[in-house]
């Protein structure tokens, strides 16, 4: 890499990783390699996208570039150079000056990127003060200016606030402001959108595009969603199991023949088939009927007598046919989850009827077994210290179903049914990956032999290829067992392939009932917002139910 090559007057890259490998010390003395022989160059002002499914080593790359790997990880070989100098030679003070000053990081979860007990003014000002000697007035002015730049019309209000007082999108904006306040040359964005709802994702993506253009910022954008990269990245690296699977421009990658690359770019191609008509007999009557459901939450602030009533569900009517899939869409906070929790019996509605096969809910336990729920985050709904068999067989044990041997046999069969190797039955749930844990949760729900399966953002935490696999599995199970699905989501991925009916919720009300095919033509503002956000995000990639 000498600059002596005449004619090739390529400028020194801002950041270069050569033959970089990162190892993790796993429990039990194993060494897991997260990154192998990765080469990467980012020039001043250039945007590089890193695309890969979860577990492909993307986040380790981001941390290694900042020399921020956790204690149990280390750079096994190769080097990272910033402006031609190896990071290993940097002193602690030089590293600090580089972090935040020259190279900034936006991390995955905006909810978890800010200190929960410190006011945002301090969290923003401290970044500035870590790199510049400024007086109070200058700091305050700069903070205000930066917050305006990321789209807050009223910065003083944000500066006085604490993280819990902001929405997810606002927190991510503050995190971006923190990263950019010292005008770094390179921004490393590690999945900055994946924890946000679709509409907010589109806003943040637009913001990043604008900032990149205005500040001539070099960017390393890490994601599992190919759609976002089309709008942002000059060059894309596709990663697989810690190695580079392909690299090049979006156009070049789209014509790649590699199956993995195609799977990353077009996850929906894994799913074939036309939108299905629901195949239940129409005269059978609905499996579940909801009439005029209302639910109000009363909040009381600590140390105060004032009560705030939050109307979460207003006059919900709903009917689910046996064997059908109904999708409930809406932004976060629109009441989707409350609806799901009422149907599953976790919440008692204030008024209204929930009829299961035409009869009101009489014995709660009975209904709850016929209605099962899968949550967004399988990691928190499964005890990580249970073995896979224990997780799946738990509902059977609670119901005292048959003998232990038969329960185990059924648990193994269910694991196989959801695509998990029964050989893993004795592994701890905590050792499974996110996608596998979601499959465990599915197997556990199926163990109760439900008729209705409620999925509350059950796929949102997974990356696109995994979501596609899960959708295929769910469709398969539906036709085999005649299951009815209530699929709750904030995005439109796979909706058209999966659902027969779409319900859009906003502020506790159902604002539109439609079919996936008519979704794009909707004139309802809430629906339009979801559709447009989805289109902007998934430009070349995932189908947006159009």
């Amino acid at each position, binding site marked *: 890499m000498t600059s002596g090559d005449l004619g090739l007057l390529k400028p020194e890259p801002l950041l270069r990783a050569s033959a970089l490998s990162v190892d993790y010390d796993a429990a039990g003395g194993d060494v897991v390699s997260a990154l192998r022989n990765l080469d990467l160059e980012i020039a001043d002002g250039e945007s590089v996208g890193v695309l890969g499914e979860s577990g492909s080593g993307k986040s380790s790359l981001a941390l290694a570039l*900042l020399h921020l790997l956790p204690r149990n990880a280390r750079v096994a070989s190769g080097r990272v150079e910033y402006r031609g100098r190896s990071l290993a030679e940097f002193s602690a003070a030089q590293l600090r000056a*580089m972090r935040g000053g020259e190279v900034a990081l936006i991390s995955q979860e905006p909810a978890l990127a800010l*200190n929960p007990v410190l006011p945002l003014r301090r969290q923003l000002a401290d970044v500035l003060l870590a790199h510049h000697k400024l007086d109070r007035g200058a700091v305050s002015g700069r903070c205000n200016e930066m917050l305006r730049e990321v789209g807050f019309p009223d910065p003083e209000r944000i500066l006085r606030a604490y993280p819990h007082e902001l929405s997810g999108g606002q927190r991510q904006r503050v995190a971006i402001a923190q990263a950019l306040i010292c005008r770094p040359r390179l921004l490393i964005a590690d999945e900055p959108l994946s924890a946000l709802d679709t509409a907010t994702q589109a806003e943040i993506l637009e913001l990043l595009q604008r900032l990149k253009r205005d500040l001539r910022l070099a960017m390393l954008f890490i994601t599992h969603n190919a759609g976002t990269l089309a709008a942002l990245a000059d060059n894309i690296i596709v990663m697989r199991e810690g190695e580079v699977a392909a690299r090049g421009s979006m156009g070049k990658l789209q014509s790649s023949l590699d199956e993995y690359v195609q799977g990353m770019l077009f996850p929906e191609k894994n799913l074939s088939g036309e939108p299905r008509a629901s195949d239940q007999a129409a005269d059978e009557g609905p499996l579940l009927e909801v009439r005029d459901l209302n639910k109000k939450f009363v909040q009381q602030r600590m140390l105060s007598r004032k009560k705030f009533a939050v109307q979460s569900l207003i006059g919900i009517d709903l009917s689910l046919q046996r064997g059908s899939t109904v999708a409930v869409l809406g932004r976060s906070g629109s009441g989707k989850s409350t609806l799901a929790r009422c149907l599953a019996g976790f919440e008692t509605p204030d008024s209204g009827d929930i009829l299961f096969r035409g009869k009101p809910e009489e014995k709660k336990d009975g209904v709850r077994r016929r209605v099962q729920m899968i949550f967004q985050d399988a990691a928190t709904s499964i005890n990580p210290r249970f073995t896979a068999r224990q997780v799946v067989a738990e509902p059977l044990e609670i119901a005292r179903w048959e003998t232990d041997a038969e329960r185990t046999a059924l648990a193994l069969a269910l694991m196989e049914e959801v695509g998990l190797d029964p050989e893993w039955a004795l592994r701890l749930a905590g050792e499974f990956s996110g996608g596998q844990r979601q499959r465990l949760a599915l197997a556990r729900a199926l163990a109760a032999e439900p008729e209705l399966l409620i999925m509350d953002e059950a796929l949102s935490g997974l990356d696109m290829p995994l979501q596609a696999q899960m959708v295929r599995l769910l469709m398969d199970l539906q036709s085999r067992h005649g299951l009815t699905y209530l699929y709750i989501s904030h995005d439109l991925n796979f909706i058209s392939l999966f659902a027969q009916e779409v319900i859009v919720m906003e502020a506790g009300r159902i604002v539109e009932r439609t079919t996936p095919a008519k979704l794009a033509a909707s004139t309802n503002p809430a629906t339009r917002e979801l559709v447009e956000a989805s289109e902007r995000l998934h430009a070349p990639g995932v189908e947006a139910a159009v």
Partner: protein
Amino acid sequence: MIRYLARRAAHGLLMLFGVSILLFLLFQAAPGDFLSEAKLNSQISPGTMAQLRAQYGLDQSLPIRYWQWAKSSVRGEFGYSFSYNAPAASLLWPRARNTLLLSVPALIISWLIALPLGVLVAGWKGKWADRLFSGGTSTLLALPDVLIALLALLIALKTGMFPVDGMTAINAQDEGWWAWLRDLGWHMLLPVAALVVGSLAIILRHVRNSVGEVLESSYMRATEGHGLPRYKLLFGYALPAAANPLISLFGLSVAVLLSGSLLIEVVMSWPGIGPLLLEAILARDLFLVIGAVMLSTVFLIVGNLLGDVLLYAFDPRIRRGL
């Protein structure tokens, strides 16, 4: 806030009332009373016994005795000590003051040492210094208080430098208040040190663990990624975020200010509330025991309240509603 404090104070009074009733019932259920031992003495005639019982009010029914005690509590006497022939309050106050003279400095010193040290050790997590500290705190935790007190006594005995005979030398007050104060400090040194050693390990562990947990969080990694200096990361960002369990622990250490040093006081003959309580229990000196327990309960209530108020002051999520 004021309304909240008033409500908590009312709860506290209710709790004191409940505790006092419970104590009376427990004493009633326990066998024997102050005069049980005298009964064994054949020189005292049954007539004298009956007279004594009447004098101490032990012949009255439980509700009447409780009522009498409640009246005397309102007067600020908290009943009458049988063995000292004095109002319980007049015995308890100076003893409680002496105990606080030990436990308050011990509390302050332990926290002043444990907070910065715990944060630093958390920052060294996984390195040899951390392992050394973990080993040290484990050893300290395993040492029973009696042993620590006995070790302190041993040190005093071997070196001959530390007094272990109560609070002050007999002639201390003769040489002016400055000499008296110095003498008092000298007497306090060993018991306070023993108390600090006894409580330090627990606080240190809590600080290290809760700060260590916060250091692993994604927001601390993000903050480190912004290039903040190390001391600011540890003390300005990690410590405030880790403060909640520590504040609760601090409330607990305030709650045991009166009762936590009992053993040390007895072993080192410090005239605190501990030796008095021990004597009173052995002699079945009813009102003295009840008074001491009630006083401890007051500290428990105040300590818990203090913890909650501090949480409210420190955590914006509680202060400004989650």
